[in-house]
């Protein structure tokens, strides 16, 4: 009996610790409404779950959007933009110096009027660079890449897969 009483608080503590480790959520924007950051030097937006709509613009230095799945992330008129997103995300960068992105499956990525675009995307993604000096793309599965007015368009596929040039001028991993 004594041992049981002694164990009670520790069992609760361990349960709390497990909850802490298992219920990981990134705090930040509310998925139920748009979330915007503007002004100042830099800003990083998280999302309390999935489905956030995040927008950064008019910052002096950097902006980063971090989200789970099914998010929309927009960054413009900021020197350095970055986005990290799960699956089924739509990500847009325009009028920035660099736009660096990590996204999951079925990512819709558009990088317009940017010096350097860099994206690592999951399978089923559609990636577009337009009016860009350097566009670096790594596809971890099937993807379609469109480079328009791009000085240096580099597409890498998953190991063992070579990028293919399709009839419409796009580049594909996993076949056109």
């Amino acid at each position, binding site marked *: 009996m004594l041992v049981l009483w002694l164990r009670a608080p520790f069992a609760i503590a361990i349960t709390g610790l497990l909850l802490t480790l298992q219920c990981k959520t990134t705090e930040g*924007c509310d998925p139920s409404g748009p979330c915007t950051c503007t002004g100042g030097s830099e800003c990083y937006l998280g999302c309390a779950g999935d489905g956030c709509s995040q927008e950064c613009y008019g910052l002096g230095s950097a902006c980063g959007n971090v989200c789970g799945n099914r998010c929309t992330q927009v960054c413009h008129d900021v020197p350095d933009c970055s986005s990290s997103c799960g699956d089924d995300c739509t990500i847009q960068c325009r009028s920035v110096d660099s736009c660096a992105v990590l996204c999951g499956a079925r990512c819709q990525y558009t990088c317009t009027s940017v010096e350097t675009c860099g994206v690592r995307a999951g399978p089923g993604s559609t990636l577009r660079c337009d009016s860009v000096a350097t566009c670096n793309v790594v596809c971890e599965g099937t993807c379609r890449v469109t480079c328009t007015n791009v000085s240096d368009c580099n597409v890498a596929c998953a190991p063992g897969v070579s990028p293919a040039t399709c009839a419409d001028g796009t580049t594909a991993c996993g076949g056109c």
Partner: protein
Amino acid sequence: MAGPALCTLWTAADAAAQSTIRTPGDRRPYTIEAEPHLALGLFGPPGDGSGGGWGAGGRASFEIVRNGFIESINNSVSIGVGADFLHYDGSGYVGPGRCTRFASAPGGAAVCVEVSQTGGPSNYLFLPAVLQWNFWLAPKWSVFGEPGIAIYVFDYDSAGVVPTLYLGGRFHFSDKVTLTLRVGYPTFSLGVSFLL
């Protein structure tokens, strides 16, 4: 009119008659107080979290001095350690966050992959360590003060240390079991103590 006044006088007289505060050591001895409890965060937490919090936890207090700092009264000193897990709802206003972890995108540019941002919901694990000074007022009542510190782990990757101060009281159901209320910073708690 005289009824309530007489009742008050009787209660005060009865309490005085049963008081144990002036009798050092007049209580059942115990080694450890094991206390599971519900926890509330009525004040904003340390770190980047905000809003009100709720959760659960536990405390184990080990008696180190049976007759405490004041020899003439019934007081004792314990060392208490515990853990409290609380979820905070956030303030509703989401401010600019800071990036707590970066990764590299193709081309080497940094991508923020984890944000600590004020205003959103957050989770805390508090690990308090306190000096518990007990005052054994009556057979049914005792109170205590608990200065100390707490290590907190905030949203899984940030940690810090915060000073803590609690005031509490116990209603003694029996010699071994009490209802224990604790108010202070960073958390409030209501639980059951087992004096073993």
